[in-house]
């Protein structure tokens, strides 16, 4: 019976979330879009970076690629084809980037991915200024906010199922071993480069699609909007808050933080960035391994203390 409980709860949650736009006002739908967007971003990020511990700051590079593909192609192609093209572009970039960078480890990978996002932003800016002559682009697509919400929900659901499957499969085991010790991974017969590349590609395609699906919300895009590095940092901190190496971790991190940031930007518009920075620092200091791990550890410690109080039993 308990075996079927999680899937049933999951299904109920998806159905419940699907119905929300039927009741909610436009602010509710907007909030839902933002939340689903970040839940998907954080889950996709954690899919690769959680187990391997390769901290990527390239989230916005792929997010922006998705948004820009839609901006460029929205008038010359039917919408579904635009999404497919965006995913394909994301995949292509992920493979090129993956092949050239996944040999880097630790801080070098972090710096590279951050640099990559900036590089793509500057390239797009240069192209727009010198080739098309105008920096911004308009996106006129007959997609309603509800449509965006449902697309994002579908993507979030797919991401969640992929994460669940990876976590239970040999692929997930391989990623954990790689995250612990690459030398041991290789000596267990794991093809490290191929494994990392595959997961990086899947994660990047999902992130690209988030950008592509959300793009029509903006109507107007320019590189500073679509490639805003804050998106990378928010995704990272949400995944870390929940716990990047757990299935529900990114979800549990993304929802409260998104609501917090939403509230902060409404009430403290002038100090938003300062508070954002403080929140980042607080999370890294107080919960370095995420809320879930924190709760679990303290639960164990508390239980152990309880056991110690019991009269000693001969071993």
């Amino acid at each position, binding site marked *: 019976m308990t075996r079927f409980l999680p899937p049933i709860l999951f299904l109920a949650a998806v159905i419940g979330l699907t119905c929300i736009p039927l009741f909610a006002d436009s602010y509710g739908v907007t909030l839902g879009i933002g939340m689903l967007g970040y839940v998907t971003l954080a889950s996709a990020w954690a899919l690769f970076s959680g187990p391997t511990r390769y901290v990527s700051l390239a989230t916005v590079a792929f997010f922006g690629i998705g948004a820009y593909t839609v901006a460029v192609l929205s008038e010359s192609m039917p919408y579904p084809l635009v999404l497919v093209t965006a995913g394909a572009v994301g995949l292509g970039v992920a493979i090129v980037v993956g092949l050239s960078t996944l040999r880097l480890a630790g801080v070098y990978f972090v710096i590279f991915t951050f640099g990559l996002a900036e590089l793509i932003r500057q390239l797009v800016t240069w192209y727009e200024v010198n080739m098309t002559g105008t920096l911004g682009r308009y996106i006129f697509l007959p997609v309603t906010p509800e449509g965006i919400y449902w697309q994002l929900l579908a993507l979030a659901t797919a991401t969640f199922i992929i994460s669940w499957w990876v976590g239970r*499969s*040999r692929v997930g*085991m*391989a990623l*954990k*071993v790689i*995250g*612990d*010790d690459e*030398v*041991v*991974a*290789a*000596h*267990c*017969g*794991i*093809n*490290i480069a191929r494994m990392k590349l595959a997961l990086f590609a899947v994660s990047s395609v999902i992130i690209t699609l988030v950008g592509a699906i959300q793009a029509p919300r903006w109507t107007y895009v320019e590189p500073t909007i679509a490639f805003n590095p804050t998106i990378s940092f928010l995704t990272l901190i949400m995944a870390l808050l929940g716990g990047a*190496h757990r299935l529900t971790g990114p979800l549990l991190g993304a929802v409260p933080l998104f609501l917090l940031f939403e509230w902060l930007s409404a009430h403290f518009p002038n100090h938003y960035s300062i508070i954002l920075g403080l929140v980042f620092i607080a999370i890294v200091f107080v919960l370095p391994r995420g809320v879930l791990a924190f709760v679990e550890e303290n639960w164990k410690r508390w239980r152990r203390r309880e056991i110690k109080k019991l009269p000693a039993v001969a071993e």
Partner: protein
Amino acid sequence: MSELLKIEELTKRFGGLTAVNSVSFSVAPGEVVGLLGPNGSGKTTVLNMISGHLPATSGRIALGGQTISGLAPNQIVLKGVSRTFQLVRGLPSLTVGENVVAALAFGRRKLWGKAAQAEALQRLDEVGLAHRADQSAQELTYIDQKRMELARALALEPELLLLDEWLAGLNPTEMATGIELIRSIQRRGATILMVEHMMDAIRALCSRCVVMNAGRKIADGPTAATLADREVVTAYLGEAYA
């Protein structure tokens, strides 16, 4: 095929330093061979080249007549070579059982799910660690970590097992347990090449020894005779004892 492992003119240079200099030897199936030598003589480097952890500068390594030098470690594992590490390398974020499952899942048999868990338990039982299967790997004591690493290496179904100072750092009781464990692996027909400093263990386990000094092979023969060899004694203890 008379020999399982055949090493020919194996050389490794790190910049100007020649860590392994034109070393050749072979290991027959079922043999337990000790690879000895003072610190820095290049023993671990030889092991690292056999397992593919380091590429050889020149020379050839063959397993059962097939060249394996130049292959990546994950390919060499599938050919039938597995190893333990000088500084024990557990996978701390996994349980003890999962440490072994990792090897089963990607090794030669590609086991997964219930079959892999059952097999992992059996492998852990062989090294006396089955009761700790659900524990976190980082909670193990030093000898248990070494046992786990051995179980992981055995789970890869090796034709050739490389042990890099597997008995180092154990107390006398643990040493006796360890020797008995290696002997039980040997009885099942495994071929073992072991780097070791513990002379008692070498005398107890190895029928043959290869001795290295400063990157060169200086002796190769039956254990007792090799350990009495003049050049070997000089390398270890100096001229005065030779």
